[in-house]
């Protein structure tokens, strides 16, 4: 196999909030189909980084190219980019005034302009994929947290995206619901989707990740394959962090 074109290419990216230096000289390379798990203490810039990937935040300098589209503030093709890049949020962010099915259909219908019948077919297909076809006509508030997050995953999938970003998808869930969401994500990984996941679920990371990224204070401290990352991380910081979260 020849090396495929990179899906995400980050070069010397910097981001400031006022005078606060949120991301410092980030360099990252994600191939098509690659699964990257980003971890690190809170406030280290993990979420900010992946929010830059679909233009929810803008970087101040450096270069960010996603699936051949250069991302910068005011880019004309940013909406095309967002259709290629799905995002799953910590707080689900489902549309509470729409049913589950409508939540899944509104993107394809209004953004991609496909027909209602076709949108419904796609929506049902992906509801099946996340194992909750029977909840189609309920409102988000009637579902458990785990079910809501699965609907949110399906909503992104309905846009037939090529990349999926996960911003701490299980952090707001009750413990007994975490696995149902992780299972769906493992299955999704099996389909060859390019995934960038911010999470502290190290079991999931071990199972799925091709590359582990450790961030601290706005910098990438370590990028390594999971075998090395979990057994023999090269930086002391990373070792300490892992000790802390793997203790239990």
């Amino acid at each position, binding site marked *: 196999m020849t090396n495929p074109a990179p899906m995400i290419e980050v070069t010397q990216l910097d981001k400031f909030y006022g005078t606060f230096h949120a991301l410092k000289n980030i360099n990252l390379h994600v191939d098509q189909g690659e699964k990257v798990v980003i971890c690190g203490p809170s406030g280290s810039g993990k979420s900010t980084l992946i929010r830059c990937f679909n233009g929810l935040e803008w970087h101040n300098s450096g270069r960010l190219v996603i699936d051949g589209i250069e991302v910068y503030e005011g880019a004309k093709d940013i909406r095309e980019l967002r259709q290629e890049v799905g*995002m799953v*949020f910590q707080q689900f*962010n489902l549309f509470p*005034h729409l049913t589950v099915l409508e939540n899944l259909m509104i*993107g394809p219908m209004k953004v991609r302009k496909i027909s209602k019948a076709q949108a419904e077919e796609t929506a049902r297909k992906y509801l099946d994929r996340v194992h909750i076809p029977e909840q189609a006509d309920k409102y988000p508030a009637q579902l458990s947290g785990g079910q809501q997050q699965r609907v949110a995953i399906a909503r992104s999938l309905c846009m037939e995206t090529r990349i999926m970003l996960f911003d701490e998808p299980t952090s707001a869930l009750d413990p007994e619901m975490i696995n149902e969401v992780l299972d769906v994500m493992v299955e999704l990984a099996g389909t060859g989707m390019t995934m960038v996941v911010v999470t502290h679920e190290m079991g999931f990371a071990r199972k799925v990740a091709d590359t582990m990224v450790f961030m601290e204070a706005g910098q990438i401290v370590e990028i390594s394959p999971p075998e090395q990352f979990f057994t023999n991380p090269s930086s002391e910081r990373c070792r300490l962090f892992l000790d802390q979260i793997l203790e239990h």
Partner: protein
Amino acid sequence: MQDFLKKLKWPDYVIVAVLIAFFGYIWFAIEGTLNYKWRWELIPGYIIGWHSGREEYFANLLLQGLVATVRISIYSGILALLLGTILGVARCSANLTIRMLARTYLEFLRNVPPVVVVFIFFFFLSQQLIDALNLERWARGIARQEDNQIWTFFFGEMRRFPSLISGVIVLALFESAFVGEIVRAGIQSIPKGQREAARSIGMSRLQELRYVVLPQAMKKVVPPLANQFISLIKDSSILSLISVQELTYKTVELVASSRMIFEAWITTAAFYFVVCFGLSRIFARLEKRSDKR
């Protein structure tokens, strides 16, 4: 009733006694010193009059005024909702110029007394608009037509159409600022995550507003909007100053011609009260019902 009386304590009786004394004094002042002659029996005739020549009932001054007030309130309510929504959206715009314009308009209305605002809008805006569109001639044309019942049903006496329209415009412009604030609060009450989710599936700002933010915001702003509509009905009395022939104007007319100061104003107050209080009860009930769902 029995339970109610049992709940009363001695301070309640004191309060009631003071109130009785107060109103008794006013009553005494009117009866004794003013030598006022009450003529309540004439009031019904000024609501619905009897035309002895044509042998039929007709809507007299007070009812005419009430109907005009209802018409003006409904039309300017709709117009204020439209303008207010635009203004509310403009207040949340990403564009600084648009935001500042909306803010300026709002601050002007908040910090200038309503009566002054009404005169300014009347002379500078609605009067010019009516002249420019030549509404005066057009309305007189319709008034002369034979078959103008539909027009009359919606707008009353067509010769007064320009005055009605300028009343509607002035009141709508005035209320739109407050509607705008309510809409803005509604929009800003929608969590940021909703907008981000909409954007992350590729929606444009307009789609984000139309399919995600406004439907949720509108549901939240219905109760305050209902209250604002009641305020609008009350504020419509200011229009009497620019000779719009609504309830307050008609009452002034009635008082001038019949000298029934107290009866006329009490009746008018009762009209406003019944309409506004009735609406507020209906809105409260509707709100309770939609909460249950």
